[in-house]
């Protein structure tokens, strides 16, 4: 496969640079076309990688041909390719949606979006912790600017909070990396996994400190309980299409937890084995509970969706803390489902708030929407999927996760909390739906009909949910294989370190 592994990072970067150059910088039509084209290319490259990883072992690409413990490697295993495909697909949808008008509301929307995709894809592909930090920063600085897109007063305030919090997070990340490097002498994930098991004496305590510092950072990015307070305000104040793209960003934090606490501090880490899981288990359950309360308390649809993000993160982190192959596979299925459905809810909130005029997307009486069938139907499907009702994809993810949790001793706590949270989501979403679509003051509907491009994107995203049910066989097979690959730490270590040794010989 060779250099193909770099394409999901290089293509968006190239796209972003081209979009900044004169012919595209001035011409809106060209900028939109080019941005969509590059998003499409990235998606194709990611899908090719996905196909490749499904049939082959882990693919390792040594950047600059520097061998693994010394140079930076890109590791394309099934988990990474699944997530970059998801990112690229979501990016294509969001860019297309924004091309119907939202990109004009501020400057540099398309280049920033491409940089965001580059950062997210890079974070998923890299096999080096410091490189992970760099890609985190790339995606963060793009997200800071996107958050300010079409900004007003309230955006400035939430952006300020978001930026300051993440800068502190970056400092903690670096301190954690410094501690780990000082103890282990390497930052390559596979090599760290080898070195962690050989630690003795006080070094174990130091490595534990470093690992838990990283947990704080990933927890901040993923928004788990004590560090989730920034999320509802930030996501609900962002432009909905940007918020839809941000649906993948909390998953970057979750992914980093998967990588670090399964491979480095996984089962073969000696005394440090599964050190984060005991923290994550109670926190994840509390996160689900607090997210459910937030969903009930939300006064508009965007805030409600932002709180749904918190519930989904709690669910995923609970799956991490179960550290079994089945839980991981269920979590991967759930990641695809929840990212797409939360994105579509943000986009629907955008259309609804435009069409309801002054009432916006607040849960109060307002004008009837101009397209009740498309928006109402879309909302119904998305809501059914998110709350996990039978015909939609959420149901499979939920059942699978509950089944995985019954294998460990967590059933007594996890089942009630999770099921009650789902019930609360059901109540909140039905209340929201009836306010938005049924309770109107007697005014005429607005004439504002959504651009066909926007509704098409929404329909495409919505279709994913039934498709994920119809093709749940192949998808679950894939996520199971991906989870097995992730938990097979020895294979990961051997592949990453061996391939680079061959590179040295040749």
């Amino acid at each position: 496969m060779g250099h193909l592994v770099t394409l999901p990072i290089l293509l968006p970067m190239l796209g972003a640079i081209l979009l900044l150059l004169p012919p595209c910088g001035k011409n809106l039509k060209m900028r939109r076309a080019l941005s969509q084209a590059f998003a499409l290319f990235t998606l194709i490259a990611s899908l090719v990688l996905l196909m490749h990883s499904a049939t082959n072992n882990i693919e390792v690409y040594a950047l600059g041909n520097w061998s693994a413990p010394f140079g930076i490697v890109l590791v394309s295993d099934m988990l990474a390719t699944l997530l970059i495909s998801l990112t690229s697909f979501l990016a294509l949808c969001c860019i297309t949606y924004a091309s119907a008008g939202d990109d004009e509301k501020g400057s540099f929307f398309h280049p920033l979006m491409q940089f965001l995709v580059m950062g997210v894809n890079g974070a998923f592909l890299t096999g080096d912790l410091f490189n992970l930090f760099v890609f985190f920063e790339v995606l963060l600085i793009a997200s800071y600017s996107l958050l300010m897109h079409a900004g007003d007063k309230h955006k400035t305030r939430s952006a300020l909070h978001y930026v300051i919090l993440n800068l502190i997070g970056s400092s903690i990340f670096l301190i954690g990396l410094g501690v780990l490097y000082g103890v282990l002498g390497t930052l390559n994930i596979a090599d760290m996994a080898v070195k962690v098991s050989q630690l003795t004496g006080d070094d174990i305590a130091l490595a534990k400190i470093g690992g838990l510092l990283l947990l704080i950072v990933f927890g901040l990015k993923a928004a788990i309980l004590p560090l989730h307070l920034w999320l509802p305000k930030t996501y609900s104040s962002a432009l909905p299409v940007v918020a839809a793209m941000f649906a993948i960003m909390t998953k970057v934090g979750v992914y980093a937890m998967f990588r670090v606490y399964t491979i480095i501090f996984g089962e073969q880490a000696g005394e440090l084995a599964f050190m984060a899981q005991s923290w994550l288990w109670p926190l994840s359950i509390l996160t689900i509970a607090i997210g459910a309360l937030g969903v009930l308390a939300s006064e508009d649809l965007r805030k409600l969706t932002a709180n749904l993000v918190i519930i989904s993160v709690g669910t995923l982190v609970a799956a991490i803390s179960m550290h079994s192959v089945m839980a991981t596979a269920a979590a991967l299925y759930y990641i695809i489902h929840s990212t797409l459905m939360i994105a579509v809810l943000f986009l629907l909130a955008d259309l609804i708030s435009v069409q309801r005029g002054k009432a916006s997307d607040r849960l109060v009486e307002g004008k009837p929407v101009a397209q009740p069938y498309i928006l109402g139907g879309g909302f119904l499907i998305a809501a059914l999927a998110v709350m996990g009702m039978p015909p939609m994809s959420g149901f499979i993810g939920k059942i699978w996760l509950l089944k995985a949790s019954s294998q460990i001793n967590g059933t007594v706590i996890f089942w009630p909390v999770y099921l009650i949270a789902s019930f609360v989501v059901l109540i909140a979403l039905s209340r929201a739906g009836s306010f938005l679509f049924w309770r109107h003051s007697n005014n005429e509907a607005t004439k504002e009909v959504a651009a066909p491009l926007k509704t098409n994107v929404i329909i495409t995203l919505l279709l994913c949910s039934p498709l994920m049910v119809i093709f749940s066989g192949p998808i679950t097979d894939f996520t199971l294989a991906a989870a097995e690959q992730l938990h097979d730490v020895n294979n990961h270590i051997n592949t990453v370190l061996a391939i680079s040794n061959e590179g040295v010989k040749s």
Partner: protein
Amino acid sequence: MEILYATCVGVLVTCGLFLILRARTFPVVLGLTMMSYAVNLFLFASGRLNSNQAAVLGQSTQYADPLPQALVLTAIVIGFAMTAFVVILSIRGRADLGNDHVDGIIPNKNKASQREIR
């Protein structure tokens, strides 16, 4: 040297944290800058402290670990960009919100002026 170095990092982190908790944008920016200095020093020390050792092979009998120096360089560049961004954002926040409090509302002021700001 170790004690001096550790004290430096510790004092910088303490000052940084104190300033960040001031909740005014200017002290917060200063605090973030101090934190990033402390972090850079800390990262540098992760390759062990030693003097008279070059980071290049063959230049001295013992050599220093070159990787932390590369990491620090990267961290400095990124920290610089982020600081520039947060400075601009704070200026915009000062203009948009009418004061330099991170929440946009100054606590313990009479309610009339708060309403005005909103």
